[in-house]
C-alpha cells in the first residue's frame, strides 16, 4: 500500500526529482549554471573557474560543500566525518566562548574590533590539524603525542590577540601531562612551568607560585635538561626566585615587612639553588635592602657584603657599585660616617671605571652631601662639581638643575666663613674686599693672597 500511494503526487506536479544516480550530475549542472545564470548567482560568487567548457568538470559533494558552506562548517563536518568528535566539540566550544566574550564586552570594546575566530581560516586550519592529531593519539593511548600537539597549539597562539587560546591549551596540556607516567613526570613538570608562566603574565602570582612550586618539586634531584643544556631544576629555581621577589615587592607595598623578608629569603635560597651567581647576588642585595628598610642594619650588612663579594667575583662593576652604595647607606644610618665615606669613595672609584655615569653622579652627590654635612665644604664642592660635569653630558634637565643648585649651595657655604669674618671685622680692607666681590661675584675670599 505504501508504495502504491506515491503516484498521487506525480512528477509533473513537483519540480524535477533528482534520484541518487544522477544526484552528483545535478550538482554539476548547478555549478555550471552558476556561471552564466543570474538565478544561481549567489552560489557562483565563490565558484572556481572551470577548466574547459567542452569538458564537463567532475565535482564531488565535498567540492560543492567547499563553495556552498562556510569554512567553519566544512572543517567541522570534515572532522566529524572522520570521527573526531572531541576535536569538533572543542573547536565549537572555543568559537562559542569567543563569541560569548565578545557579546559580553559589547560594541566598541577591543574584542569587538577583532576578526571573529571562525573567519580566520588559517587559525581554524591549525586548530583542526593539531586537535585531530591529538585526538587520534589519545584514542591510541599515546599521551606524549597528545601533549606535544597541545603544546604546539599553545605556542602557535602565543601572541597578544590569542592569549586566551594559548592559555586554554597550556591548561589542557597540563591535564594530559598528568596522565603521562612513563617519563617520571618530566612532561608534567614542563606543563607546570608553562602554566606558571601563563599566570605570571596574567599577574596572578599565587597561582603561578603553586605551579612553579609543583615544577620545582617535580624537578628536584632530576637531571633533565632543555635544548640549551640548562637543567629544569635551575629553571624552576629561577622562576620561583622571580615570583618570590615580586610577591615580596607587593608585601612591601602593603607594609608587611616581616612577611616580605620571609619571602625574600625564600627567593634568596632559590637563587642559591639555581646555581646562578648573578641571580644569587641580586637576591642577596634584595634581602639586604629589605633588612635595611626594616631597620636591621647588621643583618643587612652581611647580605650586602655577600652581594659585594659575588659582584667582585663576577667582575660586575655596576653591581659592585650598588653594593658599595648600599653598604655606605647602612653605615651612615648606623652613624659610622667615616666608614660610609670610605665605601662611597670606593663606589665613585668603581663607577668611574665603568661608564655608568648615572650611578657615578649619584655617588658624587652622596659624597658631596656627606662632606657638606660634615662641614668639609671644599671637598663637598669638588664632588658636586664632578656631579655637575657628569650631568651636563646626560641631557637630563631636572637633574642638571638639581646639581646646579647643590653646587651653588655648597660654594656659598664654602665662602660663608670668610665672608662673615670680613663682615665682622669691618675694616677698610674688608669693606673693599666685600665691594670687589660684589662687583665680580667671584670667589676671592678663599684666595690666600687677598686675605
Amino acid at each position, binding site marked *: *500500500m*505504501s*508504495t*502504491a*500511494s*506515491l*503516484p*498521487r*503526487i506525480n512528477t509533473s*506536479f*513537483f*519540480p524535477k*526529482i*533528482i*534520484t*541518487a544516480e544522477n*544526484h552528483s550530475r545535478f550538482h554539476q549542472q548547478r555549478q555550471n549554471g552558476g556561471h552564466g545564470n543570474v538565478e544561481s548567482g*549567489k552560489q557562483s560568487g565563490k565558484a572556481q573557474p572551470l577548466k574547459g567548457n567542452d569538458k564537463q568538470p567532475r565535482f564531488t*559533494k565535498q567540492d560543492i560543500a567547499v563553495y556552498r558552506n562556510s569554512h567553519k*562548517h566544512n572543517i*567541522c*563536518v*570534515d*572532522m*566529524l*566525518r572522520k*570521527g573526531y*568528535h*572531541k576535536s*569538533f*566539540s572543542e573547536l*565549537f*566550544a572555543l568559537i*562559542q566562548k569567543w563569541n560569548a566574550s565578545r557579546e559580553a564586552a559589547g560594541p566598541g570594546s577591543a574584542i569587538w574590533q577583532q576578526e571573529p575566530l571562525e573567519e580566520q581560516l588559517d587559525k581554524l586550519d591549525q586548530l583542526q590539524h593539531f586537535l585531530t592529531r591529538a585526538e587520534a593519539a589519545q*584514542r*591510541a593511548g599515546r599521551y606524549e603525542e597528545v601533549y606535544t600537539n597541545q603544546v604546539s597549539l599553545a605556542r602557535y597562539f602565543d601572541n597578544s590577540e590569542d592569549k586566551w587560546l594559548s592559555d586554554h591549551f597550556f591548561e589542557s596540556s597540563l591535564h594530559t601531562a598528568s596522565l603521562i607516567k612513563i617519563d617520571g613526570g618530566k612532561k608534567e613538570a614542563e606543563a607546570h612551568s608553562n602554566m606558571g608562566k601563563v599566570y605570571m603574565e596574567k599577574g596572578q602570582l599565587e597561582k603561578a607560585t603553586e605551579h612553579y612550586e609543583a615544577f620545582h618539586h617535580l624537578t628536584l634531584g632530576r637531571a633533565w635538561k632543555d635544548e640549551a643544556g640548562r637543567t629544569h631544576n635551575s629553571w624552576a629555581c629561577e622562576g620561583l626566585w622571580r615570583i618570590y621577589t615580586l610577591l615580596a615587592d607587593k608585601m612591601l607595598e602593603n607594609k608587611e615587612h616581616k612577611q616580605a623578608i620571609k619571602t625574600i629569603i625564600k627567593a634568596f635560597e632559590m637563587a642559591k639553588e639555581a646555581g646562578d651567581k648573578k641571580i644569587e647576588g641580586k637576591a642577596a642585595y634584595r634581602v639586604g635592602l629589605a633588612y635595611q628598610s626594616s631597620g636591621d642594619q647588621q643583618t643587612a650588612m652581611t647580605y650586602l657584603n655577600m652581594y659585594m663579594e659575588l659582584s667582585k667575583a663576577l667582575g660586575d662593576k655596576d653591581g659592585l657599585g650598588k653594593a658599595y652604595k648600599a653598604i655606605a647607606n647602612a653605615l651612615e644610618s648606623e652613624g659610622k660616617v667615616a666608614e660610609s665615606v670610605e665605601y662611597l669613595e670606593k663606589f665613585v672609584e668603581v663607577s668611574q671605571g665603568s661608564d655608568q655615569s648615572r650611578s657615578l653622579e649619584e655617588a658624587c652627590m652622596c659624597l658631596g652631601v656627606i662632606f657638606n654635612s660634615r662641614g668639609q665644604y671644599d671637598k663637598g664642592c669638588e664632588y658636586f662639581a664632578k656631579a655637575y660635569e657628569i650631568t651636563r653630558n646626560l641631557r637630563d634637565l631636572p637633574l642638571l638643575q638639581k646639581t646646579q643648585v647643590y653646587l651653588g649651595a655648597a660654594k656659598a657655604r664654602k665662602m660663608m666663613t670668610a665672608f662673615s669674618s670680613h663682615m665682622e671685622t669691618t675694616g677698610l680692607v674688608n669693606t673693599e674686599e666685600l665691594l670687589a666681590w660684589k662687583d665680580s661675584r667671584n670667589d676671592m675670599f678663599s684666595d690666600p693672597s687677598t686675605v
Partner: protein
Amino acid sequence: MSEITPLANPRGVKRLCELCQRPARLQCSHCRVTYYCDSDHQGADWVGIHEKVCQLLIPLRTAVPFHTLEVEREHHRAQTLQRQEQLIELSRATAQKKLFEGKHQEAVPAALLSLRCCVEIHGTSALQLVPSYLLLAEACTGLGNLTQAEEYLCRAEWTVLKNTECGRRLRHTLHRSLGLLHAAKGDLEGALEHLASDVYYASEEFGSDHIVTSGGYFHMANVFFRQNKMDIADSLYTEVTAIWHRHLSSLLEAHQRSASAPADPPLEHSLSEAQQAEAQQVLGAILDIREQAPRPDPTQTARAAHSLALLHFLGTNTPKVVEFGRKALRCSQLVPDCGLTEPIERLLQLAESRSA
C-alpha cells in the same frame, strides 16, 4: 461504508482512492467526502488517520457555499486555512507517534494526508513540505522500501536546496534522515557525511552537548561500528552516554528540588514521548554493546545502566528501575572510584520508597 459506481459520477468529477489514487469504488459513510478503491485501503486509512479526522474533512472537502459579501468570502478562506493547518498538525503528530511505536505501515496514511494538505496550502516547493517528506521517508525506511524512501528524501533535499533561508533545525532533521537512509543502503561513507552535517546543524541550534545532538553521535557511532572502527565508535558511545547521563541526572535533581514543594509536577512530562522513546532505544543499544564487548569496561556499563534506570524512574516504571539500578550498582562496585555508586544507591532507595 457505501458503494459507488465510477460511471455514475457527475461529469468532470473524478473520485480517487485516498491512498492510491486509483478510481474509487467505496465511500466513507461517515463523512461522505472520502473515497477508496477497496476495503483494504479503507481499513488501512481508518486505522492510520481517518478515524481521527473523519469529521474534520467534511468542511474542507464540500463545495464552497455561496457568499455574497467579500467579507464573508474572506472569513471562509481564513477559516479553511486554519482548519487545514490543524489537520496538518494532527496528522503529523499521529504519524510521528505511530513511527515511535514502530507501526510504520500505519504511519503512512497520516503522513500522506499531512503532505497533501501542505501542498494545498503552500504549493509544491515550500519548505513546509519537508517534515512530511521526512515522515514518509522514515516510514518507508522502516518498511524496508528504500527506493521509495530515497525518493521522498530527494524531494526534501531539493526543496531545502531551493530555499536558501531554510532553518538549521530542518536541515539537521533532513541530514539525519539522509544519513540513516545511506546507512540502511550500506553506503557508509555517505551516511557519515550526512550525519556529520546533522551533528553540525544540531550543535549550531542546540549546542554540541545537547541530547538532540547526541542522536547524531549515536548513529555515527553505529556506522563506525559497522566499519569496524571500534575505537572511534567506543569514544562516540561514551560521549552519547555521558550526554544522556548528564541530562537525566539533572532532570532528577530538578525534580527532587521541586519535590519538597507540595505541588509535585508530574515527572513524566520532563521528557517528551519522542525523547523517551529515543533515549530508551539509544541507551538500550549502548548497554547491549557494552555488555557484549570483548573487553568490558565496568565504568561505561555502569553509566549506561544508571542512565537507563534514571530514564525508567522518570517514566515511573519501578521494576525496571530496580533491574537496571542493580546492574549499574554491580558494575560500579568493580571500579573503586568511579563516583557512580552513591547516586545509584540513592536512586534505588528512591525507587523503593516509591513502590512502598
